[in-house]
């Protein structure tokens, strides 16, 4: 009596959920189960006695001969290789295969057993992943190239914009010397103000672009020269451009400050410019710089309406612009760049704002992050 099907090994071989092939040592098919015949739409007569590679696509044949057959000889098994069999009508069937070599006592190969799992979906998925990787690689490369081009463009643009601006400034100075009427003086002053504002905008745009493109803000630290004249010059320039406004300054810098003086000047200019734009016109802007408790501290205060809480949260983000009339609006980069300069100095930029006054406070350690002790200034 035949065994019940559940115990029938022959049935398990023939109708297993995986395909089986046994090969002779010469690579010809000895036996093949029904499952594999079904997947490839072939008959046993068609396959037995023929080379296994006859039923595999060309890529698989080469791979079998150059990798699988040698590995079976060398290590006796080879698991998890992808291979594509071909149906009677020429359709590909993607498989994942394990193989082992049976050997006699002398180590001579007696047979090779192959077990196949149909893996059409998995292979398609893998193919899609590989394609996606290739696409990502290509687009990353082109993105990098574009970004490099952008960086160069911004550097060139910045350089080229600064030169004509310097000419306008020089021209305005010459005209200023010969200006006679009050009207002429006013126009010249307005020209100088505009030039300064544009120069500031260009600096900010260049810094922002550099930061975004990974260059960051670079520092040229110097603790030997005094910082006070730099700050004073910034205030003077802003006084010239806003002659109707009052700017008070107080300096208590009695220790050397290891900083990039141009950058700190830019930070001060951005903070004071911001105070002039947003502060009450009838109240002074107060600038105070001091060295205290191993720190350099710069505060810029103005009167007027307090900064709303909603706005305060976004104050240092790029392109944030407060509620001012259009003619006074900048790019919204000034405070962002100031905070970046602070960060580059291992310092911090903070703001407090009440109905009485708004104060921006910049603090940084007196000595640089490299830990060198600054030499006292003369």
């Amino acid at each position: 009596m035949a065994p019940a099907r559940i115990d029938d090994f022959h049935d398990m071989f023939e109708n297993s959920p995986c395909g089986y092939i046994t090969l002779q040592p010469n690579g010809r098919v000895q036996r093949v189960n029904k499952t594999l015949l079904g997947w490839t739409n072939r008959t046993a007569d068609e396959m037995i006695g023929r080379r296994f590679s006859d039923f595999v696509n060309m890529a698989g044949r080469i791979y079998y001969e150059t990798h699988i057959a040698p590995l079976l000889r060398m290590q006796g098994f080879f698991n998890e290789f992808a291979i594509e069999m071909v149906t009677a009508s020429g359709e590909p069937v993607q498989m994942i295969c394990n193989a082992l070599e049976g050997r006699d006592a002398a180590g001579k190969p007696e047979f090779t057993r192959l077990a196949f799992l149909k893996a059409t979906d998995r292979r398609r998925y893998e193919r899609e992943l590989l394609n996606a990787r290739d696409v990502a690689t290509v687009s990353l490369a082109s993105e990098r190239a574009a970004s490099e081009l952008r960086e160069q463009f911004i550097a060139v643009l910045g350089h080229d914009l600064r030169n004509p601006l310097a000419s306008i400034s020089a021209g305005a100075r010459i005209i200023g010397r010969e200006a006679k009427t009050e009207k002429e003086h006013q126009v010249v002053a307005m020209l100088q103000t505009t030039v300064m504002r544009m120069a500031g905008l260009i600096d900010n745009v260049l810094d922002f672009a550099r930061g975004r493109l990974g260059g960051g803000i670079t520092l040229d630290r110097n603790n030997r020269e005094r910082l006070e004249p730099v700050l004073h010059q910034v205030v003077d320039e802003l006084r010239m451009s806003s002659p109707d406004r009052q700017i008070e300054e107080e300096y208590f810098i009695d220790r050397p400050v290891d900083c990039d003086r141009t950058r700190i000047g830019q930070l001060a200019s951005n903070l004071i410019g911001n105070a002039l734009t947003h502060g009450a016109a009838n109240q002074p802007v107060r600038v105070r710089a001091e060295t205290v408790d191993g720190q350099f501290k710069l505060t810029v205060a103005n009167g007027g309406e307090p900064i709303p809480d909603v706005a305060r949260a976004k104050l240092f983000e790029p392109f944030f612009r407060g509620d001012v009339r259009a003619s006074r609006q900048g790019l919204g980069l000034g405070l962002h760049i100031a905070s970046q300069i602070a960060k580059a100095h291992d310092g911090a930029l903070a703001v407090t704002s009440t109905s009485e006054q708004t104060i921006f406070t910049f603090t940084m350690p007196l000595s640089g992050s490299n830990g060198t002790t600054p030499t006292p200034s003369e």
Partner: protein
Amino acid sequence: MSVIERNNVHSRGSGERAMVFAHGFGCDQNMWRYVAPAFEDEFRTILFDHVGAGGSDLTAYDKTRYATLDGYADDVVEIGNELGLKDAVFVGHSVSSMIGVLASQKAPDLFGKLVLVGPSARYIDDSDYVGGFSEKQIEELLQFLESNHMGWSAQMAPAIMGNPDRPELGAELTNSFCRTDPEIAKAFARVTFKSDNRADLAKVAVPTLILQCCDDIIASEEVGTFVHANITNSKMIILQATGHCPNLSAPDEVIDAMRTFV
């Protein structure tokens, strides 16, 4: 990095003359494990891995240098010079047959005899010439190679590559005999299957033995006969062995055939 380390060169045996074994596309010098020992009594046997394969220094892989078989042939010459070889026997399997043909022209004194196992001077059909493959099939192979990474993983690579003094870290891993960086495998496949060395065969000046298998779909008898017909001083032996790797499947037959020649 010396040439010896770069190509993972191993020298055994004690003979006066040297016998250099070069592996083909797919695996490494282990391909000769059943053949080379048979010659250790008479020859100094030299085994090595092509750069990119087996225990070679993967950091030495240079896309430009290895974009043609010439780069691999230059390596063979460098190994020969480093070891001071003269009048040696070169034994090349598969694509290394042509690497040997090129090397013997670059350094005429290096090899006195060539043994070419399963050689093909060109794999892709070309008008009247039958290589056995179409351009499209080779492109499919290159794509297919990406689906089989042979136990390679990016995480594992540094452990193997960074410890040349501790080869046991990589040696015992599954499939290690055929493992390589997928990008390098693809590049080597491209170089191998797109090579055309038909014009180089006539320049071979030394006695050459061609070992041809039955039923070899990589290098058919027709392809082997072409090599035989174009190397003046050559002899061809048709082996009983089937497939493309008689050095593994029928080592005794390969050894016997080689003995009649060397």
